């Protein structure tokens, strides 16, 4: 008589750690890309709000993860570790973008410049409340934006967010709590 309970598929964390333990870093990377690639891309896009930059940062995260895998100490989950790398690369991209805009962005557009309005799919997605929310998120300081997105889009606990950001969980929680009223106002809900 055999058990009829379905075997649960192995958790990607366990699979990746096993690959690491036997020294197969390439296999570990592949597992991580398959397990977390899409979520990480979404996170990078929502932080950076630019698809092309998000694509580049997203790939760089995994390239760096591959190079740093030998030094992974296992003090956090691989998922948290990946998001920590993503946070650093997003912050770098934001700094570089700000520097570039200070130097090169003109006050008036060039005569032959392509229409730089929102793309059709973006315009559709960013309608109404969503558009207001996107704008409100964009107005937040990037560190707070990251914390809010990790909490409400990636479903992380404050302890996990603290590990990603290198802060105490209580600090992160306070930071998110201060941001929520501003987002509610943007949605027209007023302060609670």
């Amino acid at each position: 008589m055999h058990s009829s309970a379905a075997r649960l598929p192995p958790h990607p964390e366990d699979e990746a750690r096993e690959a690491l333990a036997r020294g197969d870093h390439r296999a570990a990377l592949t597992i991580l890309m398959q397990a977390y690639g899409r979520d990480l891309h979404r996170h990078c896009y929502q932080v950076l709000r630019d698809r092309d930059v998000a694509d580049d940062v997203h790939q760089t995260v995994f390239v760096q993860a591959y190079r740093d895998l030998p030094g992974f100490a296992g003090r956090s989950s691989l998922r948290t570790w990946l998001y920590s790398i993503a946070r650093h690369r997003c912050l770098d991209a934001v700094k570089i973008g700000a520097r570039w805009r200070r130097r090169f962005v003109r006050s008036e557009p060039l005569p032959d410049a392509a229409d730089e309005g929102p793309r059709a799919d973006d315009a559709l997605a960013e309608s109404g409340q969503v558009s207001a929310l996107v704008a409100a998120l964009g107005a937040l300081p990037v560190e707070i934006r990251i914390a809010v997105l990790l909490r409400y889009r990636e479903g992380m606990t404050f302890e996990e967010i603290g590990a990603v950001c290198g802060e105490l969980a209580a600090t992160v929680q306070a930071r998110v709590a201060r941001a929520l009223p501003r987002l509610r106002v943007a949605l027209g809900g007023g302060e609670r």
Partner: protein
Amino acid sequence: MNDAGLERALDDLPDGGGPREGWQDCVLARIEVPPARPRPRWPLVAAGSGLVAAAAAVVLFVALRTGERPAPPADNRVRLEQLMRDIDETIVEAERLRLLRAATAAEKAQAQAELDRARAKRDEMGRRLETLKARKRKRAKEHEAKVVAKCEPNDPLCAIE
């Protein structure tokens, strides 16, 4: 608006369409390329190599220089006094020849006076020279008494008298 409403709104945020097709292959291709080595900072490299070259030159100079050391001031003084005494001796000789060539009594008297002055000066210089030599000998003896040179018996560089 409560937190649940905010959460629902955040769930509706656009996700950017997801990563582009083939992104994993791009990552795998990038990891095959070794990371770029940091460019050397040329000013620091130049300064560092200059320092190394200077240090090597100093070491070579110290290692290759001969055993001759500049003479201490006392030796130079003695040499100088000896030289001046030699000059005085030459002057005395010249005055003697002048006296021999003197034709008249006046010339002879003058030449004799000059010869006497030259001899006196030569003798004075000789006494000073002897005093200097005596002081040098005395200092050398005092120095030998203070410094005990330790020599290994088989050390070829140690002058054993």
